C-alpha cells in the first residue's frame, strides 16, 4: 500500500524538478506529467480496494489531528484522485505534441501544479490546507487560460482572476470565522462541534464557503468567468478545467455542506439552484455558434444537474451524482480534445466550419459524436446510467418540489440533445459530400487519449457495475457524518 500523501508529493516534486530537468534535455520534460499521473493512476487504483474497506488516514509530520494536518483518503477522495490522475494522464499524452513553441516547460509545470492542487483539495482533511491547495489549482488555472497569449485569453484570464480571487478571499474570511469560533482547522473536529452553535456566526462562514467555492464550481450566478475562460484556453486546458477544476470546486462545496456543516434542511434551495444553473447553462449553449463556448455552457448545465443530484441528499442521489460527474468528466474532456483537434485543423471555432469533418477526420468526428451522445445520455454510452440513476433518485425522493423540478430537467436535457445533435449533423451531413481522399493525418499523441476516453465511455456505459460499489461507498461517506468524524477524532 502506498501512502496517499505521495499522490500529492510526487507530481509536486516532479513539477519542481522540471526547471532542473530542462538542463538535461528539453525533450524529456514533456513526458514528465504523463509519468507523474501514470504513477498516481496505478497506485490510486491499487489503493481503491483498501479504502472501500476503511478510510485511510495519514498524519503529516507525526502529529495527531487536530494538532497536525491529516489526509483522509476515503472513497470520495480516492474516486477523485483516480479521476484526476486518469484525465491528467490522458490529457498529458495529448500534449506530447507542444501546444505552443515557446514556454513549453512552463506549460507542463503549471499543468502539473494545477492537477496537484486538485488532488490536494480532494485528499486533505483540514480546511485551511484545502484552501491552500485550492489556491494552487486556481492560480495555475488562471495562468493556463492565458497560456496561448492572445488577447481573448489574457482578457478572460484576468476576469477569471478577479472573480476567483474574490471567491478565495471569501473562503479565507470564512475559515477565519470558523477558526475564531472553534479554535481548530481540522474538518472533522469542526464538524463534530458545529451543531453546538446555533447562530449566524456559523451560518455566515457556510455561505462564504458556498459562494467562494461556488465560483470555481460554476454555480449560477457565480459562473460568469467560465464561458470566456473555457473557450479561450488551449483545448487541453479546457478539457481539464471542464473535466476536473469545476468538479473539484463542486467537491469542496459538497465537503463543506455535507461533512463540515452537515446541513439537512436547506436542500430545497440547492435543488432550485441546481436546476436554475442547468436551465441557464443549456439555454445559453443552445444559442451558441462557437463550439468551445457551447461546450463551456454545457458544462455549466451539467454542473447544475450534478448539484441537483447531490442536493437530493440520498444515497441514490449522491451515487448517481458521482456517476454523472465521472461521465461528465470523461465526456467533456473527450469533447474538448476532439473539438480542439478539429479547431486546430480548420482554424475556426465556428460550428459551421466543421462541415465535412466526418470525412476529413473520421476518427475525431466519431470520438466527438460518442462524447456528445454520452452527454445527452443515450445508451450504450456512459451518460445513460448517470442520467438513469439521477432520475431514479429524484423519483424515489418523491417530493412535490423535486417532481416539479424534474420537468425542467427533462426540458433542459432535450435542449442539450438539440444542440449536440446539431453539431453531429454538421460533422457528418452538412454541406457537400467530400471524396474519401481528403483525410487529415492523425497524430499518434492525439489519437491515443481520444481513443482511451472513447473506450472508457463505452465500457463504463455497458458495465456501470464496475464503479457503482465505489460510488455507493462514496455516497455513504458523505452522508454518514458521525462515522466520518469519529474515525478521525475519536
Amino acid at each position, binding site marked *: 500500500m502506498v501512502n496517499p500523501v505521495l499522490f500529492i508529493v510526487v507530481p509536486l516534486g516532479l513539477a519542481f524538478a522540471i526547471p532542473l530537468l530542462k538542463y538535461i534535455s528539453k525533450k524529456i520534460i514533456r513526458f514528465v506529467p504523463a509519468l507523474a499521473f501514470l504513477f498516481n493512476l496505478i497506485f490510486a487504483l491499487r489503493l481503491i480496494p483498501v479504502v472501500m474497506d476503511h478510510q485511510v488516514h495519514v498524519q503529516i509530520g507525526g502529529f495527531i489531528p487536530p494538532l497536525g494536518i491529516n489526509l483522509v483518503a476515503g472513497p470520495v477522495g480516492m474516486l477523485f484522485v483516480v479521476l484526476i490522475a486518469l484525465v491528467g494522464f490522458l490529457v498529458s499524452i495529448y500534449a506530447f505534441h507542444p501546444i505552443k513553441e515557446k514556454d513549453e516547460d512552463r506549460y507542463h509545470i503549471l499543468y502539473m501544479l494545477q492537477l496537484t492542487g486538485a488532488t490536494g483539495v480532494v485528499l486533505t482533511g483540514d480546511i485551511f490546507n484545502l484552501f491552500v491547495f485550492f489556491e494552487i489549482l486556481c492560480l495555475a488555472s488562471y495562468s493556463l487560460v492565458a497560456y496561448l497569449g492572445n488577447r481573448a485569453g489574457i482578457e478572460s484570464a484576468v476576469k477569471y482572476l478577479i*472573480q476567483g480571487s474574490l471567491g478565495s478571499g471569501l473562503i479565507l474570511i470564512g475559515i477565519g470565522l470558523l477558526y475564531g469560533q472553534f479554535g481548530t482547522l481540522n474538518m472533522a473536529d469542526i464538524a463534530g462541534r458545529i451543531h453546538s452553535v446555533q447562530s449566524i456566526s456559523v451560518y455566515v462562514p457556510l455561505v462564504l464557503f458556498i459562494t467562494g467555492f461556488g465560483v470555481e464550481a460554476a454555480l449560477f450566478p457565480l459562473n460568469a468567468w467560465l464561458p470566456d475562460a473555457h473557450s479561450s484556453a488551449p483545448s487541453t486546458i479546457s478539457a481539464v478545467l471542464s473535466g476536473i477544476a469545476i468538479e473539484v470546486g463542486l467537491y469542496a462545496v459538497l465537503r463543506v455542506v455535507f461533512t463540515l456543516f452537515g446541513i439537512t434542511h436547506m436542500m430545497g434551495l440547492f435543488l432550485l439552484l441546481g436546476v436554475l444553473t442547468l436551465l441557464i447553462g443549456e439555454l445559453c449553449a443552445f444559442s451558441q455558434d462557437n463550439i468551445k463556448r457551447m461546450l463551456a455552457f454545457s458544462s455549466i448545465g451539467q454542473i447544475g444537474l450534478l448539484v441537483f443530484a447531490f442536493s437530493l441528499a440520498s444515497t441514490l442521489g449522491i451515487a448517481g451524482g458521482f456517476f454523472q460527474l465521472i461521465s461528465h468528466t470523461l465526456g467533456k474532456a473527450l469533447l474538448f480534445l476532439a473539438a480542439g483537434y478539429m479547431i486546430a485543423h480548420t482554424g475556426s471555432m465556428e460550428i459551421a466550419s466543421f462541415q465535412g469533418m466526418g470525412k476529413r477526420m473520421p476518427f475525431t468526428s466519431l470520438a466527438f459524436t460518442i462524447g456528445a451522445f454520452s452527454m445527452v445520455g443515450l*445508451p450504450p454510452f456512459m451518460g445513460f446510467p448517470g442520467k438513469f440513476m439521477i432520475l431514479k433518485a429524484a423519483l424515489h425522493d418523491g417530493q412535490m418540489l423535486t417532481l416539479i423540478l424534474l420537468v425542467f430537467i427533462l426540458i433542459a436535457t432535450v435542449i442539450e440533445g438539440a444542440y449536440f445533435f446539431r453539431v453531429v449533423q454538421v460533422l457528418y*451531413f452538412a454541406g457537400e459530400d467530400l471524396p474519401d481522399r481528403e483525410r487529415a493525418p492523425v497524430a499518434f499523441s492525439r489519437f491515443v487519449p481520444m481513443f482511451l476516453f472513447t473506450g472508457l465511455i463505452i465500457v463504463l456505459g455497458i458495465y456501470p457495475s464496475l464503479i457503482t460499489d465505489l460510488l455507493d461507498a462514496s455516497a455513504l461517506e458523505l452522508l454518514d457524518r458521525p462515522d466520518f468524524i469519529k474515525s478521525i477524532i475519536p
Partner: protein
Amino acid sequence: MKLEILLAVVFGGSLLTYLLGKISKRARDILAILVLLAATAGIASLYGRSSTAILCTGFLDFPLVLRIHPFAWIFALTIAVVGLCAVIFSWHYIRKKGRTDFFYFMMLLVISSMIGIVLSGDFLSFYIFWEIMSWSTFLLISYNREEAIAAGMKYIVMSVAGSLVMLVGMISLYTQTGTLVFEGITRNLNSASSGYLQFILILFFVAFGIKNAIWPLHVWLPPAHSEAPSPFSSVLSGILIKIGTFGFILLIYGIVQVQVFVNLGHALFNVRNLLLLLGAVTILLPTFIALLQDDAKRLLAWSTVAQAGYMILGIAYGTSESLSGGTLHFFNHALFKSLLFMVVGAVEFRTNGVRDLNSLGGLIKKMPVTFAAGLIGVCGLIGVPLTNGFVSKWLIYHTLIVNHSPFLAFVALLGTWGTILYSYKLIHHIFLGQLPRKYEQLNAAPVSMKVPMIFLSLAVVVFGVLPGLPLHVINLSEIGFGMEPLAINMWGVVTGSGTIQMLNIATALTLGGIVLWLFFRMGRKNTRADQLDNYAAGAPVPADRYQYSVKFYDPLTSMIAPYLKDTADNFYSALARGIRNVGNGIRRIYTGDVGNYVMYIILFLAILIFIQLYWKVW
C-alpha cells in the same frame, strides 16, 4: 435459436458488415443480407415458443431479461422480413451515394435494435434498445443532407423528449413496484390507484405516441419519411413507427391489463377515450393533408400517420376483436407501406431523385413491374377485398359498429374515402397519363428492387386471401394476454354478428370477374387507338400539350386546404424559436463586464445572508 445468440448475431453482424465494407463492398452487401436472413430464420424457428432468458444479471443492479412469446414473435418476424427486403432493395439504390458502409451499419443497427425492443422482457433493456434505435435512426434520416438535416433534427428532438418522458414513467413504475421486469410489474401493479395508472399511461403514451406519430405528436414524421433514403423510408414507415404500436399493446394488454384499462377513470376523462379521440383525429386530418401533397414520399408519409390512427383505434378499443384488427393492421401496413415506399423509391432511383408527382406520369410503360407492385400496394392501403388491408379494416369497422361507436366508425369510413382519393392520385400521377419526353429512355427497376417488391406484393395478396395465417398468431398472443381469442379459420373470421370468409369473396369475385370479362369480350369489339390518334376541335394537338396528369384535385384541395393547417407543427416551431430567443436573452446575463460579474457574486452572497436574516434557516 437462443435469444441471446439471435441478438448477438444481429448486433455483431451490423458491426461486422461495417468493418467488412472497408475491405469489399460486394461482400458487405451479401453479408448484410445473410445476417438478416439468419435473423429471419432464427426468429421463424422460435414460432409458438414462450420463454425468457437473462441477458445480463446486473446492469445498475437490474437484470436485463429477454423473452419471446407469440406477440413478440409476429413483430420480430415482420421486422426481420421487412428489414431484409429493405436491405435487398438498397443493393442498387445506395450505390449512387456516398458513405455506404455507414448506411448499411446504421440500417442493420436500427433493425437489430428493433428486434431487441420486441424481444426485451424488462423496461430497462426495452429502453436501451429504444434509444439505440432512436439515435441510429436519427443518423440515417440525416443521411441525405440538405433538407434531411432539419428533418433529422426534428425527429431526434421529439424522440429524445419522448424517451425521457418514458424514462420517467419507467422509473416511476420501478419505485411503485420494485422491479422493471414486465411480469413483476404486472404482478405488483394491482394495488396501484387508478389515478396513478392514468398518470403512468399518459407518460408512456407520450413516448409511444411520438414514435407512433399520433396527432399532435406526429410532426417529425412527414419530413423524416420523405427525406430519408427510400429503403430506410420503407423501414421507417413499415416497422419503425410500429414499435410505438408495440409499446401501446405491451403497456395496455401486457402490463396494465385490458380490463383495468377499459374501466379506468370516469366517463368524462379517461385515457382510453382520450386515445380513441386522438386516434380519430389522427385518421381524419392526416388523410386529407396527404391529399394536398405533391411530393410522393410526403404523401405516403402522411398516409402512414393516418393509418397509424386505425391501429390506435383498434388497440385502444380494448376488445379482442379490435386488438386483432389493430395488430393485423400493423402487420398488413408493414407489408404494403414498405412496398409503396419501395415503389416510389424505385421511381426516384430511375428518375434521379424526382419525387414531385406533377412532373411524373406515364411510367407504366417503362416500369411495369413497379406499377403492378404499386397497384397492389395501393389496393392494400385502401382495403380492396383480396388484399390484406381489407380484413384488418373490416375487423376494426366491425368492432366500432357492433359496439355502438357511430362517430368513430364514421371517421374511419371518412378516412378510407380520403385514402381512396390520395391513393389514386399517387398511382395515377406516377404511372398513368402522359409520359414526359425526358423519361422516354427510362429503364425498368433493377432486379434488386424488383425482388423485394414482388415478394411484398405477393405477401399482400396472400395474406389478403388467407388472413387466418397472421390471425392465428395474433390469437395465440391474445391468449397470452388472457383474452378471449377470435373464432377464426384459414379463410377468415367468424363473429356473432358477421362473418368474413375470403374463400367466398374470392370465389365470388373471380366468378364475377370472369363473367364481366366474357361479357365485354363477346359484347364489343374494341380497337386499340394510338395515343396521338385524336383531335381537339378538329386540329391535332402536339404531344406535349396532353395532360401530364397534374392537379386534378385542385377544386377539392382548394376547398379543404384552409382547414388542414398543420397547427401542431407551427406550434412546435414557435416553441423552438421561443426557446432560442430565451436563450439569446439569457446570454445577456454574461455581459462581459467583470464589474457586473463581481456584483453577481456579491449579490449571491447577500441573498444567502438575507435568507438567514429574514427566515432564520440555520
